[in-house]
């Protein structure tokens, strides 16, 4: 029986890419296939365990499927690409190098290498799968001849967990609670969110709160500078850096927010946008990367980064119940397009799992 091998250099908990790898693995197993997961480094416990990548060189056979998840460059990919098997690259998008200049030159270098490597891998892959049309277009531009789009496979039942009561209690007071969920990283532009909340408090609601959920461990410099910015603007008490949180706490943050705001300048898919829709949050997002694609008809997209305008838009959404209701209804419809069943179907068809 042909085996499905899944690989990503690092597997960590509470990460969209790692979640996707695990979801595909579990789908394959449910369909009765022999499925294994490999990584260079893993802190994620999964069923069957994560195998060290070196095993791939021994275990892969010509009629197996090798799913290489690509979000950063790594020399291992060059080695794996030489293995005789049906090789599919699942592309999660490499953050462009220019989003690291002035912050993290090390990451910038890696980003550049990643994009270059994508080009050299193109010829050796049978299929390039983008998790969004935005990503798929990049694969084509990099030289992939066969491409397809398969969205991230999300297990929506996991979000039925009870919300963390401590978080709910904490968030009860303020009337306006803006939420953004994503790793603290320069291209996610949490700095602009801090400026936005300063405007919001000065002109619209002086008690508005901003919650930033997402790990800040990878970008300590940017995180420190964000805190300094919040202090300079006098909004330290209004901005919460929640860090990396449990699913139960995440659910609580979604449930206690009044709007989801994104000013991110680069998104390969945007799982938090769908999560916001799932929790009936109206969305105002800057149109970048795959944001428009994921939002579809739901949410208000801003084409210019005018912080005052975006803040007033969020303010209007907070004021107008009818506007909010329209957005929430559209969100419910849109998130259904990404239901587990639908995506599983597409995954089976395209990836031949």
């Amino acid at each position, binding site marked *: 029986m042909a085996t499905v091998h899944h690989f990503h250099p690092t597997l960590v908990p509470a990460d969209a890419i790692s979640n996707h790898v695990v979801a595909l693995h579990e789908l394959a197993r449910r369909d009765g296939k022999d499925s294994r997961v490999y990584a260079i480094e893993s802190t994620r416990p999964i069923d069957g365990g994560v195998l060290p990548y070196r095993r791939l060189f021994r275990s892969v056979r010509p009629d197996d499927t090798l799913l290489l998840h690509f979000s950063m460059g790594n020399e291992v990919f060059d080695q794996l690409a030489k293995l005789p098997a049906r090789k599919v690259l699942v592309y999660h998008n490499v953050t462009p190098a220019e989003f690291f200049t002035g912050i993290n030159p090390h990451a910038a270098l890696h980003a550049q290498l990643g994009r270059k490597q994508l080009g050299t891998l193109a010829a050796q892959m049978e299929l390039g799968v983008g998790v969004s049309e935005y990503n798929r277009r990049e694969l084509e531009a990099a030289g992939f001849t066969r491409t397809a789009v398969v969205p991230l496979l999300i297990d929506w039942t996991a979000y039925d967990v009870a919300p963390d009561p401590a978080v709910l209690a904490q968030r009860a007071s303020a009337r306006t609670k803006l939420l953004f969920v994503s790793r603290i990283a320069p291209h996610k532009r949490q700095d602009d969110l801090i400026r936005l909340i300063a405007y919001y408090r000065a*002109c619209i609601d002086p008690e508005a709160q901003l919650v930033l959920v997402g790990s800040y461990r990878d970008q300590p410099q940017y995180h420190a500078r964000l805190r300094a910015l919040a202090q300079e603007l006098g909004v330290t008490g209004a901005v919460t850096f929640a860090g990396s949180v449990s699913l139960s706490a995440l659910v609580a943050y979604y449930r206690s927010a009044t709007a989801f705001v994104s000013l991110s300048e680069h998104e390969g898919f945007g799982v938090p946008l769908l999560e916001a829709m799932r929790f009936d949050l109206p969305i105002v997002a800057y149109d970048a990367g795959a944001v428009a694609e994921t939002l579809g008809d739901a949410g208000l997209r801003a084409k210019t980064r005018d912080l005052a305008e975006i803040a*007033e838009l969020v303010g209007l959404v907070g004021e107008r119940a009818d506007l909010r209701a*329209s957005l929430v209804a559209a969100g419910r419809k849109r998130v259904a397009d990404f239901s587990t069943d639908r995506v599983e179907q597409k995954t089976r068809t395209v990836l031949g799992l």
Partner: protein
Amino acid sequence: MTTAPSTTGVDVDALMNEVRARIRQRRESGRFDAGLQAALDRPLPGGAPIFADDLADPLKALPDVLDADQAYDPRSRRRYVGPVITLARRAAIWLLRSWIGDLVDRQDRVNRLLYAAIREQALAPSPLGEARLAAIEETLARRERDENASNLEWRFLVARFSGVEEQIRAQAEPFVALFPRGGRVLDLGSGRGYVLGLMRERGLAAYGVDIDGAAVAESRGNGFEVLEADAEAHLRSLADRSLDGIYSAHVAEHVLLGKLVEILRQARRVLKPGAPLVMATPNAATLTVSSHTFYFDPSHRRPIPPELFQFLLEVEGFTGVEVRSYAPTEPRLDEGVPDGPIRENVRLLNRTLFGDRDYAVVGRAP
């Protein structure tokens, strides 16, 4: 700016119009002021601007790079030979570490010294630049002094050409009558304080401003409230709508036209609505003034035609602007000639050559 397709039932254009209207409101109400705009534009503190090319501002980017700690990872992940290569790299590093360490330390020291030297150069003023700047400043100052003939003893000039107290008071009288009794009135360019004296007698709470320290000292000695200051600077220091009137005699022709416009703008701001502004200056329309006596004072800039001065007040918003000339020239042509064209000609000649020597432009703040 935004799009949200019609299926959500949201009228995006209407929404954006509302957004823009609200922003306009915030600006008008002063909530969205320059300070808030500055906050929105505030760069991320603590280092080089993000997403910016290092090369655009190398001096700012250097400290981060100097202190950056990029660990080299000697591991190779190739098949089979990977571990061998890794071992070989590690061994090579271990063998060469003292030599490399030495080189690195030396280079690091050179880098830091260079950075410090460049920063010092960049921030320190250059001696050559300083010398040239000083030369330019000296040239400008000398030019100014020469234009005003400040090497002349002013008290002699004043003694020779200046008007007497009675005359100055008499000429000021009809204008001082325009100011409200008990009002706070400013004599801009109060000189020896003659008009201040008149104002005090007419029951005005008057004070003066003059740039000449000696004149200020003399007026204070006579019990007047006088400040030593530049006319424009003093007006700028006043609050909006705080004065009941401004009188200024023979100041306008001492300043460049641009500064006169600034003075008028500040005057409009600090005067209460309806309060009078009176500015007197030599009458350029009388040719024996504008071609002759105007130049008795070396610090006079250029004659100001009454039509121009009236225009300057009107264009700055003053209302009811009028020109009142006074101080007829003596001697003038004798108009006792036969009626008809000859008398008309003599009159015209008198007006043109021997007309009133001064005029005052009077206007009220809007």
